[in-house]
């Protein structure tokens, strides 16, 4: 395939992050694993937002649903009554292995995105932004109070913490490959055509609605997978899959460059690296003999300033929304018309 080289950049970056994670102490390794999960989420966002140019604030709902699915299926049966006393009857005795729970999480994310997408993909622009936000609010509201399907406001404790570097790395690569395969497929090309010029794409017979729905479903699938990984990484609580995660992952996508897969991966890694370093520095660290002890909350401020600055100074992101090419002239297609 002619474009296969575009896969090299993202995969090498993910692999490098995973390998780097094996070299550090166990406590630091968590940051790398978390970063790789974030890469999966941001790649899921890219599949829809990057290719369609339509903003979605709702993808973290699918991450949350994935986390809830994998979490409920993975808590040991003996501990379910303690953590989730009001769990629906048919879920109480269900228990699956790690990989199965991830697969089911991904499927649930995909189905949820498909169902939500059927009405919502008719909207674009601001209406789409607000409607997807509404999806996030509804999901958050229901997961907070519906104790028949999860722990409600409690954290998902006792979920086996199986998401290590290897699993998170493999999953991130899977997400990248799926996103790449989608973007290079007929569907991905048609969707990007609608992003660049809606009227022209319609004129050649592309159905904007159908193409967006396909992308939304694929990205919901990846988001569900990422949610499954997340719940196996740390005890997820309903507020940890809400506004803050929406903000940070959108920031990553926009900072990297929303219109390319390379941009999504670069953004996720760069912002994660900065964010993790600042989080460490908030607990006190020393760099080159300087002792740094930042007050808690600095990370959010710096990331906020960075995101605003990138949007103002370079709205197409660090990579300019372009894929990494090894030879020839950089492909400039989407950079000039980058929308998100």
């Amino acid at each position, binding site marked *: 395939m002619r474009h296969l080289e575009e896969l090299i950049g993202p995969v090498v970056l993910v692999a490098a992050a995973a390998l780097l994670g094996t070299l550090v102490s166990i406590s630091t390794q968590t940051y790398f694993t978390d970063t790789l999960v974030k890469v999966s989420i941001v790649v899921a966002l890219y599949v829809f937002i990057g290719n369609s*140019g*339509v*903003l979605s604030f709702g993808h973290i709902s699918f991450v949350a649903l994935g986390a809830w699915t994998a979490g409920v299926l993975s808590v040991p049966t003996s501990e379910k009554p303690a953590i989730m006393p009001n769990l629906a009857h048919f879920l109480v005795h269900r228990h699956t292995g790690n990989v199965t729970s991830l697969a089911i999480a991904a499927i649930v994310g995909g189905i949820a995105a498909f169902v939500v997408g059927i*009405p*919502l993909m*008719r*909207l674009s*622009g*601001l*209406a789409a*932004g*607000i*409607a997807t*936000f*509404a*999806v996030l*609010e*509804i999901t958050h*509201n*229901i997961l*907070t*109070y519906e104790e028949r399907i999860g722990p409600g406001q409690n954290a998902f404790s006792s979920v086996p913490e199986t998401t290590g570097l290897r699993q998170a790395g493999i999953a991130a690569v899977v997400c990248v490959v799926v996103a790449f395969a989608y973007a290079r497929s007929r569907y991905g090309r048609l969707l990007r055509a609608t992003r660049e010029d*809606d*009227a022209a794409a319609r004129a050649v017979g592309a159905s904007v609605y159908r193409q967006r729905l396909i992308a939304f479903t694929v990205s919901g699938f990846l988001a569900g997978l990422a949610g499954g990984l997340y719940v196996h990484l740390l005890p997820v609580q309903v507020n940890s899959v809400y*506004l*803050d995660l929406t*903000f940070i992952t*959108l*920031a990553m996508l*926009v900072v990297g460059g929303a219109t390319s897969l390379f941009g999504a991966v670069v953004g996720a890694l760069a912002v994660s690296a900065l964010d993790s370093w600042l989080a460490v520095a908030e607990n006190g660290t020393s760099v080159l003999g300087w002792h740094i002890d930042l*007050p*808690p*909350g*600095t990370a*959010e*401020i710096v990331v*906020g*300033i960075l*995101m*605003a600055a990138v*949007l*103002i*100074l370079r*709205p197409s992101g660090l990579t300019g929304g372009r894929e990494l090419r090894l030879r020839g002239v950089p492909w400039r297609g989407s950079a000039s018309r980058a*929308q*998100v």
Partner: protein
Amino acid sequence: MTVAILNIDWQTLADGLALGAIYALMAVGIGLVFGVLRLVNFAYGQLVMAGAFALALASQWGWPVWAAIVLCFAVVLTLSIAMEHLVFRPLRGHSPAVMLVATFAVAFLMQSIALLWFGSLGKIATSLAYLNRPWTLAGVDIRKIAVVAVVVAVVCLVLLQVLLTRTEIGLHMRAASMDFSTSRMLGVRANRVISLAVLLSGALAAVVAVMLTVQSPLVTPDFALRDTIVVLAGVVVGGLNRPIPATLGGFTIGFATGVLGGALPTNQSQYLPALVFAAVILVLLVRPRGLFDFSKTVERV
């Protein structure tokens, strides 16, 4: 004394009206800026939050009420102007989505700064607390703030309407929200109109801050965040392009949440946000241009 259906008493109805009035003001504040800049300001709630912290600090320092309100206006207006110069101006002409994400970033930035500065526990604004006590009108208890909120909102909206329809700068603003580039060609000065819109919107945020702190005196970094999300939904549902539909949208969603939140028992009202946002999605699907937008113009491709 109760209205038969849903067990709505007069206090609930008055609270619903008050919340609707406050949300209507927020809707106008968001709508004014959208009119001239085509920018949805997600950080509007954080302006309110900043004003609320100003009020809380003033009451902590024992300032008199008028001084607290002056401080609130000063802080919110300064921040509005800063936001316009540092964020809105460089973003002018970008796509609405980029601008929305940028104001999303500004919102989180301001919230993190507040968190760093004041901590997550928040502060209490007490100087206007006496407005929370009830007035007894014809045997019915109604909290003073409910009446004050409705009156203040009506006065603000009337003043704004006078400004927009009876003055030259108001005419310029209306022209600019209708067609920005054409109005510039006809001699409307862009920066002046935008600055005025931002200032008016900031002043409304300060008014909202004063009234919201009376209703809920505990000011935390996420103060008014939920309200902003709800108002934004209301504004888009009402019809963002025109001031009156936007105001009606804000009022409706505020009134509905206020009344339903007060009338439903807790085990049902906890799902109120889900219901409200489901209704928002439904309206967007049925009437993408807004519930209250009855104009005949069709958006061009």
